[in-house]
């Protein structure tokens, strides 16, 4: 039979270690999402104000973050900022900083898109109905914005979880790193381990992200 190198996973606590590695990745993305969502709402709302200066600043922030690959941002924060400012950052903190900066920019753009997609007559009609400005936002604008926003931000979550695989490159021990360690340690006993272990990593990532994107698609169909 073809040796797929799967037996390595059942040795000792290897499977458990892989899952712990996955948890590190998920933890980093959960923290970053929790911080960047409210920030993104602020950024997005500020993007719709009429002040040209604020708009320009935010535009530059968004485009700068967007055009650079996330890995480059990770390098700049992890290697560059520590050298330039002389502080010490662990890989995990550096990745959370990058993901928050990135997430706030992306989320901001989503919020901006959702806000300007509300047609003008919604504001006018609620004014005609005698609603105050606060009432207009609470009862008319925010509910519609949230409905458009939720599926998109859930998609952003899966993107973030996928991007956490990059933190391997700045020395965070997450699932891929653990996988490499397991393969290295068993090089002699099961030379084919790299097939089985990386296959399992592949499937685990899929199992985490797939339900989340299904949920996003379901909500999109129901709400939009």
């Amino acid at each position, binding site marked *: 039979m073809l040796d797929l190198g799967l037996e390595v996973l059942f040795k000792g606590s290897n499977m458990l270690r892989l899952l712990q590695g996955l948890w590190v990745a998920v933890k980093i993305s959960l923290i970053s999402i929790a911080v960047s969502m409210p920030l993104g709402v602020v950024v997005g709302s500020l993007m719709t104000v009429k002040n040209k200066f604020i708009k320009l600043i935010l535009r530059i922030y968004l485009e700068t973050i967007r055009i650079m*690959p996330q890995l480059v941002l990770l390098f700049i924060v992890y*290697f560059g900022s520590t050298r330039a400012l002389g502080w010490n950052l662990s890989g995990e903190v550096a990745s959370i900083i990058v993901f928050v900066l990135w997430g706030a920019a992306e989320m901001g753009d989503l919020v901006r898109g959702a806000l300007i997609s509300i047609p003008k007559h919604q504001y006018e009609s609620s004014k005609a109905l005698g609603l105050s400005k606060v009432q207009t936002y609470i009862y008319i604008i925010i509910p519609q914005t949230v409905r458009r926003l939720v599926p998109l931000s859930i998609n952003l979550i899966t993107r973030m979880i996928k991007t956490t*695989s*990059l933190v391997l*490159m700045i020395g965070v021990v997450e699932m891929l790193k653990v996988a490499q360690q397991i393969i290295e340690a068993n090089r002699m006993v099961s030379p084919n381990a790299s097939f089985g272990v*990386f296959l399992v990593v592949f499937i685990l*990532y899929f199992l985490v992200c797939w339900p989340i*994107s299904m949920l996003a698609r379901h909500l999109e169909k129901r709400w939009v």
Partner: protein
Amino acid sequence: MNWEFIEKYLPLYQKAAVLTVKIGLLGIVFAILVGLVCAVVLYYRVNIARQIVSFYIELSRNTPLLVQLFFIYYGLPKIGFAMSAEQCGVAGIAFLGGSYMAEALRSGLESVEPIQRESAKSLGMNSVQTMRYVILPQAVSTSIPAFVANIIFLLKETSVFSAISLMDLMFTAKDLIGLYYKTTESLFLLVVFYLIILLPVSLLGSYVERRVRYAGFGS
């Protein structure tokens, strides 16, 4: 900032940038081909093939490129599919990008009004001609914005190539940081070169987007 250092290692970055662009573009071409086939399969609802395509799209969209590359580069040789690092890079981008391109094109195809197909039929076109001359041109022009976004996304994703020991920009930067501890200079060059690659694509993209808007006749 040490300009001598920058001058000395500029050629190294140039070589790396050429490699990044070469593999990236080749991968994107394959991704577009894969996407085209998948989108047509989904559009015509070909049985069995449609299920395979949907499964592929879910699989490729819900896993990171880095994991896909590790599997292709380190995993597949164990069961007899050995490829060079360059080929793996192209295969990885094609595998990841194929699904994104397919989704972009599929929504473009679905946005073409049924009346277009009926009119083509009444003009005596067969189904290949209808696809080639009526449906695809309109679908492509509606999906141009999504296409451009995907191309930029895929070019950015090429930054993980260093993990399968391709000497790309990230690899060069990390190497120089490790060797000479010239962090600021190495990172500066890295950012500049990524800008040189990505800015023109982004600008060209928004230009093309404004030019190719002939879709939507009869709607």
